[in-house]
């Protein structure tokens, strides 16, 4: 079954169509989901794309965190569902407390829009599962507030738990420990500043983003298959006792 990805759109989001195109190019199915929705039922994965959610007023992500959809995203993530926040989406996840730390203004106060060379530092996440550690990827960054920071205890935890997924090879923005992307403890919630959807075709300079997005789709698809199985197993006693047809797990969800 095709992996279904919800691409959340806040007022001010502007990378949603790039994400949809990249996902579909990899054989996934992507649908835009307005931030006022309260359900992500039926989806296997969630992407919070880049942009300027709610105008980035107050702080990037500060208001988006209170959008109605975020409760569902939180529940989906708590149940193990894969969620990735790209750029502004990373800022939203950090503000929502779904990822530790914060994104500050870049060192030198420069808005940076440029290809960034990255190194994959951990394969223990939904975005890097199966990707060779040490692999180099060129993926663009496009941000003003992308300098990752956190307190020393959090940094030590991220490092010892292998949760730093991507590092810049030539730190462009002052991020602590060259961090470009991190995961939560379970590895299913990921935030990264680089835009994999903008490196989805050699025509635009790089297709390295597909490495991450394909891994993400693969993770979501394997998890969906497992979840379906679990539900079928759970439903089997009911089917044998009543003799009625079991709805597919997807419908039950």
């Amino acid at each position: 079954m095709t992996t279904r990805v919800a691409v959340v759109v806040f007022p001010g989001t502007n990378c949603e169509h790039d994400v949809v195109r990249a996902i579909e190019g990899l054989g996934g199915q992507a649908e835009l989901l307005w931030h006022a929705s309260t359900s992500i039922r039926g989806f296997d994965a969630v992407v919070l794309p880049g942009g300027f959610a709610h105008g980035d007023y107050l702080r990037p992500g500060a208001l988006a965190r209170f959008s109605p959809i975020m409760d569902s995203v939180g529940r989906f993530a708590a149940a193990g569902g894969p969620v990735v926040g790209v750029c502004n989406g990373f800022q939203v996840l950090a503000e929502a407390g779904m990822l530790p730390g914060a994104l500050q203004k870049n060192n030198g106060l420069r808005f940076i829009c440029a290809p960034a060379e990255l190194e994959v530092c951990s394969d223990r996440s939904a975005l890097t599962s199966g990707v060779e550690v040490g692999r180099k990827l060129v993926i663009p960054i496009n941000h003003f507030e992308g300098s990752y920071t956190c307190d020393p205890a959090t940094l030590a935890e991220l490092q010892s738990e292998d949760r730093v997924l991507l590092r810049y090879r030539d730190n462009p923005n002052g991020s602590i420990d060259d961090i470009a992307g991190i995961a939560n403890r379970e590895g299913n919630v990921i935030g990264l500043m680089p835009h994999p959807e903008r490196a989805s075709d050699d025509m635009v300079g790089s297709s390295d983003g597909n490495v991450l997005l394909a891994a993400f789709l693969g993770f979501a698809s394997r998890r969906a298959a497992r979840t379906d199985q679990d539900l079928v197993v759970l439903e089997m006693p009911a089917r044998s006792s009543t003799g009625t047809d079991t709805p597919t797990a997807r419908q039950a969800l």
Partner: protein
Amino acid sequence: MRFDVLVEVQLRSGIADPEGATIERALPALGFTGVHSLRVGRAIRFEVDAEDEPSAGEIADQLASRLLANPVIEDAIVHVSNGNGYGYGKGGARGAAETQ
């Protein structure tokens, strides 16, 4: 009663403030010497309905910690006054009775 509130949000000490540093570096060129430790923050003013000043302060504290400041990198200082005003044309913060 309606109380005036001023919330000052500033980067926590120890957190780099590139905006403040840039402004400070520009000062000598303008003839300002001897200005140090310049930090940039933001000021948010609003009015809040509450029974008394402590409860107004409590509401403002919650608002400040849940939304106005990001506790990972920022601190908030909350000022509450009864009628002296932190807004425009209402007397200003100077001279107002403040609680922190």
